[in-house]
């Protein structure tokens, strides 16, 4: 049995007469993204602030690797705090300091590193979060997404073992929400920290989470994986699923696969599935070298291509859903695998042209140093049988994916295959 990294045991917190957390029991495991969901005012932020020590429980205890926080001596507490970082909802960047000064501050104040070592480490994180050009700008001069990245760079500069994200996507537009969640997942893989995330962005947040914790009326209503959440009979989960059925993804205009699961289940269950049904999974990938494209622009470009593909496949009577950020799954009744392969090949050229035009236009907005981007669309096709479920279909189609279109752009915006 795994030992939790952080554990809440019967934690109760009251503010005046209001009980915000009521005997909360919760486990957070190492190297996982644990997402806390729940309605507003259910004590999610209060819970997160207990972990970092900004709030102390009235009753119960919080354990770190089995050791109660309250029993820690000064040295242990300092070491515990040094391993933690907190990304505030409103970023909490020091507005009188530049991005570089903000990022370097924890190192300046809490370590004995030399000036050059601090500068080196701070700049490395700034580069990794794609803020090199804004290193000497003030937070007020940055966009919301850049501020978020600056706050993330500051949170990661001390190489923390645990990063706490308090509603990192609140107030962001739909494109930025996906960008930030993608950024968290990407950086978590890259830097290998344990993440605890508070988010209202259901279902997008599910794509980056290993475990979900549902706070309900001050207690933990559920904790487990996404699949376990869907099988649960809980009032909030029911509300959640109901909302998902009608949910259209805000970025690419596609329904989520949960909608597919609930709306098209009869196709599989009562033998109504056409015998020649195939599925295709399209994955759109974009690598950009140089700060020529904002993440938002890249997401917009991917969204445009996804929407175009979706339109084409829908015209053929296909059911098109979104699996993840740039991942589309289409179910094509009355279409064999061979026919689907031919269709995909025939769309490849027009997709390439469209993607090339969009990316070149976006890159052209930012004249500057050398840049390059590499855009690929991978496609996989699979036969669908009545016993397959949505995840099985997606996995089968993904296993045979190959690149069907690629586009590379350079400094002068000249497209070449």
């Amino acid at each position, binding site marked *: 049995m795994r030992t939790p990294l952080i554990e809440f045991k019967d934690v109760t917190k009251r503010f005046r007469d209001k009980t915000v957390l009521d005997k909360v029991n919760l486990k957070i495991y190492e190297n996982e993204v644990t997402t806390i969901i729940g309605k507003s005012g259910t004590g999610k932020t209060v819970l997160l602030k207990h972990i*970092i*020590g900004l709030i102390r429980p009235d009753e119960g205890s919080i354990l770190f690797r089995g050791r109660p926080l309250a029993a820690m001596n000064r040295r242990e507490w300092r070491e515990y705090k*040094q391993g933690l970082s*907190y990304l505030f909802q409103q970023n*909490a960047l020091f*507005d009188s300091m530049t991005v570089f000064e903000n990022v370097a*501050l924890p190192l300046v104040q*809490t370590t004995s590193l030399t000036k050059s070592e601090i500068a080196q480490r701070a700049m490395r994180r700034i580069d990794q979060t794609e803020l090199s050009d804004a290193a000497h700008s003030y937070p007020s001069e940055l966009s919301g997404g850049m501020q978020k990245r600056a706050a993330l760079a500051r949170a990661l500069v001390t190489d923390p073992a645990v990063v706490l994200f308090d509603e990192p996507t609140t107030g962001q537009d739909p494109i930025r929400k996906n960008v930030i969640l993608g950024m968290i997942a990407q950086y978590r893989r890259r830097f290998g920290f344990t993440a605890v995330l508070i988010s209202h962005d259901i279902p997008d947040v599910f794509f980056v989470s290993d475990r979900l914790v549902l706070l309900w009326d001050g207690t933990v209503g559920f904790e487990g994986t996404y699949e376990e959440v869907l099988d649960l009979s809980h009032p909030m989960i029911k509300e959640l699923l109901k909302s998902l059925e009608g949910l259209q993804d805000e970025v690419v205009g596609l329904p989520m696969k949960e909608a597919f699961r609930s709306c098209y289940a009869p196709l599989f269950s009562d033998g109504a599935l056409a015998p020649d049904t195939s599925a295709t999974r399209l994955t759109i990938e974009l690598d950009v070298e140089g700060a020529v494209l904002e993440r938002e622009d890249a997401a917009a470009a991917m969204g445009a291509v996804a929407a175009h593909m979706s339109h084409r496949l829908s015209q053929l009577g296909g059911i098109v859903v979104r699996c993840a950020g740039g991942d589309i799954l289409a179910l094509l009744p009355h279409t064999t695998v061979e026919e689907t392969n031919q269709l995909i090949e025939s769309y490849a050229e027009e997709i390439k042209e469209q993607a090339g035009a969009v990316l070149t236009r976006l890159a052209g907005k930012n004249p500057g140093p050398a840049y390059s981007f590499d855009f690929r669309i991978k496609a996989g096709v699979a036969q669908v049988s009545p016993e397959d479920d949505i995840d099985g279909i997606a996995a089968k189609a993904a296993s045979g994916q190959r690149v069907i279109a690629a586009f590379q752009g350079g400094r002068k915006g000249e497209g070449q295959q």
Partner: protein
Amino acid sequence: MVKGELGVQPSGAGRGEKLSPVLRPFRAIGRETVALVGNLGAILIFFVLSFAGIFSRRQFSETVSQLFYVSATSSGIVILVGLFTGMVLGLQLFHTLVQFGSANVLGTAMTLSLIRELGPVLTAIMIAARSGSGMAAEIGILRISEQIDALDTMGIDSVRYLVSPRLAASIIGFPILTAFFDLVGIIGGYLTGVVLMGANAGPYFYRVYSSATTADIRGGFIKAIVFAVLVSMICCFEGYYCHMRTASSGAKNVGLATRAAVVLSCTTILVADYVVTSLLM
């Protein structure tokens, strides 16, 4: 430091109980007294933590920066007020002393008034209004925008980082500005008493030079240091705990904290002036 650890609010105990109208004022007085004592204790601990933080590492550059903020940026207004205070004082004293045939002690009256009382008190009030309000507002904004919480989450002692340099800068800056005030005030007295009203310059400067004893100068500086501690502590405390105000929230709390900081600082300066004067006499 855990948020709210030091801030003390009036106790809510017994608030809902029915009490006879005769006893209600006593309950109110008792509640306020408990809150006052609690706040005094809190500000004392705040001072001890801030003072201890002055001697920790990496404080020099921030202290110099705050010294510039407290002293250099306030020097203009202090000099202006000092000049006009000296000029008014010179004018008033000249007219009074002439009636008694004692115009030659104008220098003595000017020097002792300025060094013992007016210099430290008016300088402290000017700095409280100019820099103290800034301290309260700046720290208050850091509080409501969660930047103080951010410091705590980064393992940075927010009292040491924010308050200690301001306390150190005030302890250094107040006596320097007080000395400037005294000097400019004496020059102001010369301008009105000697240049304008025709008193003799020789006796004026002789009295200025011979009247002020070391004890007077030391007393003036002691007052300046006491006022520096009071003003910086009150202003930083009000800003640091502005989020504890329950009647309002956000930016309004910062405004209230700034106003309270200036009013409380000025009042405390006058009360403390009496206490320190009594002790020095």
